[in-house]
C-alpha cells in the first residue's frame, strides 16, 4: 500500500508518459463520452432562453419548432453516443473490459 502511494507521488514512473495512437484514440473517445452529457444539458436548457407566449416583445417560438428542436437534439446525441460506442468496441475488441474498468486517470 505504502509503495503504491509513493509510486503515485512520484507520478507513476512505471507507466508510459505518451500512449500508442490506438490507446490515445480510445482516451479521446472517453473524453467525448464525458463531454456528451454536458453538451446535452446546454442544448436542452436553450429553451430557457426562448420567448414565451407571455412576453410582449418577441414572437413566441412555435410548438412544432420546439418539438423538432428537442427531438433533433435527442436524436443527435443518441447518434453520437452510438458512434462512440461503435468506435470503442472496434478499438478495444480484444480487451473490451478495459474501457469499462480503467479510467484514463492521469494518463494522456
Amino acid at each position, binding site marked *: 500500500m505504502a509503495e503504491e502511494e509513493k509510486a503515485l507521488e512520484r507520478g507513476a514512473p512505471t507507466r508510459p508518459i505518451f500512449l500508442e495512437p490506438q490507446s490515445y484514440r480510445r482516451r479521446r473517445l*472517453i473524453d467525448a*463520452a*464525458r463531454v*456528451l*452529457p*454536458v453538451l*446535452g*444539458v446546454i442544448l*436542452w*436548457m436553450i*429553451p*430557457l432562453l*426562448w*420567448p*414565451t*407566449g*407571455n412576453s410582449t416583445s418577441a414572437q*413566441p*417560438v*412555435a*410548438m*412544432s419548432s*420546439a*418539438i*423538432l428542436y*428537442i*427531438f433533433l437534439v*435527442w*436524436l443527435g*446525441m*443518441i447518434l453520437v*453516443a*452510438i458512434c462512440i*460506442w461503435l468506435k*470503442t468496441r472496434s478499438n478495444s475488441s480484444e480487451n*473490451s*473490459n478495459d*474501457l*469499462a*474498468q*480503467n*479510467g484514463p486517470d492521469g494518463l494522456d
Partner: protein
Amino acid sequence: MATLNLLVAACLGYVAFLFAVAFAADRAAARGKGGWLRSPLVYTLSLSIYCTGWTFYGAVGYAARSGLEYVTIYLGPSLVMLGWWWLLRKLVRIGRAQRATSIADLISSRYGKSNLLAIIVTVMAVVGVTPYIALQLQSVTLSISAFAPPQDPNALALDREYSGLWVATGLALFAILFGTRNLNANERHHGVVLAIAVEAVVKLIALLAVGVFVVWGVADGMGEMLARVDASALGEWQMDRSRWATLTVLSAAAFVCLPRMFQVLVVENDDERHLQTAAWAFPIYLMLMSLFVVPIAVIGLDLLPAGSNPDLFVLTVPLAEGQGGLALLSFLGGFSSATSMVIVATLALSTMVSNHIVMPIWFSQRGAGASVSGDVRNVVILARRLSICGILALGYAYYLFSGGSSALAAIGLISFAGVAQFLPALLGGIFWRGATRTGAVAGLCVGFAMWFYTMLMPSFGPGAVLSNQVFEQGLLGLNWTRPHALFGIEGLDPMVHAVFWSLSLNTAFFCLISLVSFPNPLERLQGAQFVNVFAHSANPQSWTGTVAQSEDLLIMAQRLVGSAEARAFFHAESVRQGLPEHLPEPSPDFLQRLERELAGSVGAATAHAMVGQIVGGARVSVHDLMAVADESAQMMEYSSQLEAKSSELSRTARQLREANKKLTQLSVQKDAFLSQISHELRTPMTSIRAFSEILRDTEAIGAEEKIKYATVIHGEAIRLTRLLDDLLDLSVLEHGQVSLNIKQGSLADTLDQAIAAALAGEETSLTIKLPQANADIQLKTDLDRLCQVFINLIANAQKYCDAKQPQLTISVRLEPGFVDIDFVDNGSGIPTDAQALIFEKFSRVSDQKVKGAGLGLAICRQIMNRLNGDISYMANLEGAGFRVRLPQTVALAAQ
C-alpha cells in the same frame, strides 16, 4: 358490461402470457441456456420500468395541460444514461463489488454498514414511493372506467373506491406471484426481468400504434400534424423556466434514486458492458415513448369534448374514432406500464423492508439466530409478501385520500422529489471520502422532513391534512413556515419551491455535519472502497470460487469461530465432498453451510457480507477486511499480553514482599537466637566460673563441700555440652547435611523404645496409655531419628504436663495416604498465642518451671521434614496434643 368482461379477460390472458414467459426464462436460466437472457437488449428494456402508467397515460395529460414540459421527465434520465461514464459506471461497479441488494443496502454499506441508515432509507423509500403506487392504481382504474360508455348508468357502478381496491388486490397478487416465487432470495430474477422486457415492448408498441394512428390516421401525415399542433391551444411556446430546469434535474435524480430503478440498473445488472449499450439504447426508447405525446394530446383536445380527462386521451381517442382493437392494445400497454412498475417497485421495497427492518428484528427476537437457518428463507419470503401487501395498501390509502382526481404527473412528481432526497448521500458517498454517517443521517432526515412538509402534506389539498390556516399563515402563526413560501419567499411554483428547499437543505446539512463529524474505521474503509472502486476492484467474480478462496475462507472462519472448530468444519466438508485435502471446493452448497456456521457467531447479515467479500468480492477488499481483523486481533493479543505481564509483575511483587517479610523475620530470629544462645551459654558458664573460683581461692573448704561444688560444675558442663549437641544437631538438620539411616521396624517397637528411653532414670508420675490398635504397622525410615522425636514429645509431656495425675495418650491412626501418631496429655495445654511459636528455636512456654534450651520441638520439626513427614500442634483439645504424621510410603501395611 361486456366491455368490462372483455377487459378482465384480456388482462388475465395477458398475465398468463407473462407468467409463461417468466417461467420459460427461469427454466432456461436453470438449465444454463439463458445466455440470451443476459443480453444488453434485455437489460435496456428492463430499464423501461421508468416509464410507468404516468408515462403511458400521464404524459399526454401533462402535455395537454402544460405543453412540452412533460419531456423534461425523459430528458433527465436520457442525460444520466448518456453521461453513464460519470455516475452509472461507478454506481454499477460499486453495486456489484459490494453486492448491494437495494439502494438502502448500498447507502448503509457506504456509511459503515449502518443499519440505522438502512432503516431510514427504507422508510423514506416506502413513504416516497407510496404516491407512485397510488398513481398506478389511479391510471389502471381510470383506464377501465374509460371503456364504460359515458351515457351508460352502469358506469357509476364502477365507483373508484371499489375498482381501486380490486386493482390493488390484483396487483398485489400479481407482484407476489411474480416477485417472490423464487425461494432463494439472493439470485437474480431472470424471469421477472424478461417479463418486464416483454412488457416494455408491449407498451412501446401500444403507444407507437396510437401515435401512428393519430398522425397518419386522424391527421394526414407529419406535415399536417405539425400544422395542427401549431394551430392548437398548445401552439405557442409556454413554459415555466424554473420548472423546466428543476424537472430535468429532478427526473435525473429520481432515475438514479428510485428503488426500482436501482434494482434494474444495479442489482439485476449481469455485465457492466450492458451499460454501454443501454447508454444509447435507453435514450432511444425514451425518445420513442415521448415522440407522439404532443400529437395525441392535440388530437385529443380537438376531437373530444371539453372537460374530458386528458390523462385518458391514449384510450379515448381510439375509442372516439371507433378503433376498439387499438384501444384494447393501448389498454394493455397501460396495464403493462402499471404492472411492471408495481412488480419491480414492490420487489425492491419488500427486499429493503425484509432485509433492513423485519430480519434484524426477527433475528434479535430469536436470539440464537441462524442456527435455525432452514426457517429463515421462509421468513424472508413471508416478510416480502407481507411487505408487498403493506406497500400496496399504503398506495391504495393514498389513492383514497388524495381523491383520485389529480393529474397523474403531479402525483408522480411528489414521489420523484421524495426519493431524490437520497441523491446527496448517494453522490457524496460515491465521490467524497469525507462523507460520514452522521452527515448522511442528518441530510436525509432534514430533506425528508422538508419534502414531507412542503410537498407530501400539501398534496392532499388545503384543509385535508394541513389546515388552511397553516397554508396562509404558517405553523403556529409563524409566517416564514408557510409550506408554499418557506422563509417568506413567495411566488415560486410549489413544486420548484419544495424541491429547491428540500434538496438544498439536505445537501447543506449533509456536507456541514460530514465536515464536523468523524467517521468510524469501517466507514472510512468503506468510503475508500466506494470512492476508489476502480482502483480497488477487478471485474467482480461470480459466486463460484477457487480453492485459493477456500484458504481465505478458512482463515476468515478461524478468526470468527476459532481455529479448531473451523478446521474441523472444513475437514468435514471436504470429506462430504469426497476430497482427500483439508480444503473443500467452494461449492454454493458449502458456502451456504459456511455462511450459516459463521452466522452463529457474527450474525447473518455480517456472515453473508463476509463470505460474499471473499467469494464474490474483490481481492483488495478481502485484504482490507483481513487487515481490520488482523488489527483487532493484534490489539487483543497485545492487551492480553499486557494483562499477563501486569499479573506476572504483581505476582513477583507479592513474592518479593513475602521474601522481604521472611528476611526481616529471619533477621529478628537471628538476633533473638544470638541473644538467646549467649544467655544460654552464659548462665552455666557463670556458675562454673563462680564455683571454680571458690574451689581455687577458698583455703578452708571441706571435702564434702568440694564434692558439692565440683558436682555443680560438672552438671553445668554437661548442660552446656547437651546444649551444644542440640545446636549442632539442629544446624546439621537445618542444612540438610544429615544422612538418614533407613531401617525397617515396627512402629510399636519404636514407641516402646522411646517410652523406655524417655522415662529412664526419672522419677515421674506420668502414666502412658498406648492402645495396641494399629501399632503393628511396619515402617521403613530412620527409626532412630523417629524415636528421637517420640522421646522428645514424651519428655515434654513429662516436663510440662501440669495435671495432678499426668497422663499421656498415644494413639496411632491409619489415614488414607499417611499415618498419624497423636500424643495427647491431660494438662492445660499451650496458650493460643504461644502455639505459633513452639516449633521455633529457644521458644519456651514457661521459663520458670523447667529448664530447657527450647530446641527440642525445633529439632523434632526438622527431623520430621527430613523424613517427609510433619509434626503439628493439635489445637482445640483439652490438653496439649501433638500429631506426628508420616507419609504412607514410609509405612508398610502389615500383611
